[in-house]
């Protein structure tokens, strides 16, 4: 299930590899400020949705920066800022066997069942 490579849930879009990345830029130094993933509730009644990420010195600054970077046009009524290194990700491989058990259970979908066309409200 794992490739043995180190990953970090970084950059706002899922885990990224920490090694074996040749960018021609040498060994990346540790970023000074931790990475936060930002989630915004667009309006009351909706879920918080992931919008991106940013670096901040502490939790409070993360929320302030998130306001400036991601809600300049009334995009939200509430912000969550989560330290990226606290996020648990399923696995580095998007087509992981973790999701296989759902693959052959078509009977979990309403379209699996044939109902005569003249039966109303179903």
């Amino acid at each position: 299930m794992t490739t043995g490579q180190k990953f970090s849930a970084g950059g706002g879009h899922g885990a990224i590899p920490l090694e074996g990345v040749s960018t021609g830029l040498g060994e990346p130094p540790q970023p000074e400020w931790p990475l936060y993933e930002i989630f915004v509730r667009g309006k009351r009644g909706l879920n918080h949705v992931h919008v991106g990420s940013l670096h901040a010195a502490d939790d409070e600054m993360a929320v302030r920066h998130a306001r400036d970077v991601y809600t300049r046009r009334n995009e939200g009524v509430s912000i969550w800022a989560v330290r990226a290194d606290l996020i648990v990700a399923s696995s580095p491989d998007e087509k992981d066997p973790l999701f296989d058990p759902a693959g052959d259970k078509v009977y979990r979908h309403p379209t699996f069942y044939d109902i005569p066309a003249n039966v109303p409200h179903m």
Partner: protein
Amino acid sequence: MSDTLQTASLEADFDRVIERHDRIEPRDWMPEKYRATLVRQVAQHAHSEIIGMQPEGNWITRAPSLRRKAILLAKVQDEAGHGLYLYSACETLGVTRAELTEKLIAGKQKYSSIFNYPTLSYADVGTIGWLVDGAAICNQVPLCRTSYGPYGRAMNRICKEESFHQRQGFELLLTMMSGTDAQRAMVQESVDRFWWPALMMFGPPDVESPNTAQSMAWRIKRDTNDDLRQKFVDMSVPQAQALGVTLPDAELRWNEERGHYDFTQPDWDEFMAVVKGSGPCNAQRIAHRKRALDEGAWVREAATAFARSQREDAS
């Protein structure tokens, strides 16, 4: 499985994702060249947004009214935001923002050549919004469908905001065009200066652009430089007519057969010289970026120290 076999199988998976127009996400295996191409392109894009704050920022203190000043401030703040979206996307490829900034200041990474031209009059604020942001929109709309997920998502956010930039610029010029003869002359002079550099924004002609074919095969790039440039010209001509300005190209005319406007190519020698560092403002732009970074160091250090002391107090 041997390493070679495993790589071949990973590469086949990657090719299939690209083939069905699906997106590559940060955790997916990708060819090193794909990763390197993206780092180069996204970093250059991020740097352009950040350096792009300077030409217009030049006019914030001298904007002619509070309304214009508020608009210009909002626009320059947007550019900062766009830079941050893109640096975030670039970080998912395994580089850090500090490294990218270092490369920019050392001249090892580039930014759009357009920002090496000066803003000599206030009309330039309008022209940049209309032509420069207009050209950027032509480039950026197709990139919303780019094959790398984080880059496409950043481009989506940017494109939504970019439309305000172009419209405020056009409206500014329209206001000046309904003013005095001197104001109209200012607009024309500004358009004369920015037309050619705006055409250069799409990059060298396809025959001289070695990176385009591979980038298109990987669906990082969706249209060729020449196609985008043609689209921009076709779009700009009626806009110039509505504005009442003349685009400075005597050869610019409708070609019935092609269904496009014919136009003169910009001076590609000038383009190469500007990219290599001999543009009117290259040194100034980098010096300013470095000064901002150096002068902001104490703020970042203070914030780090404050965060540390808060943590220590809590424990």
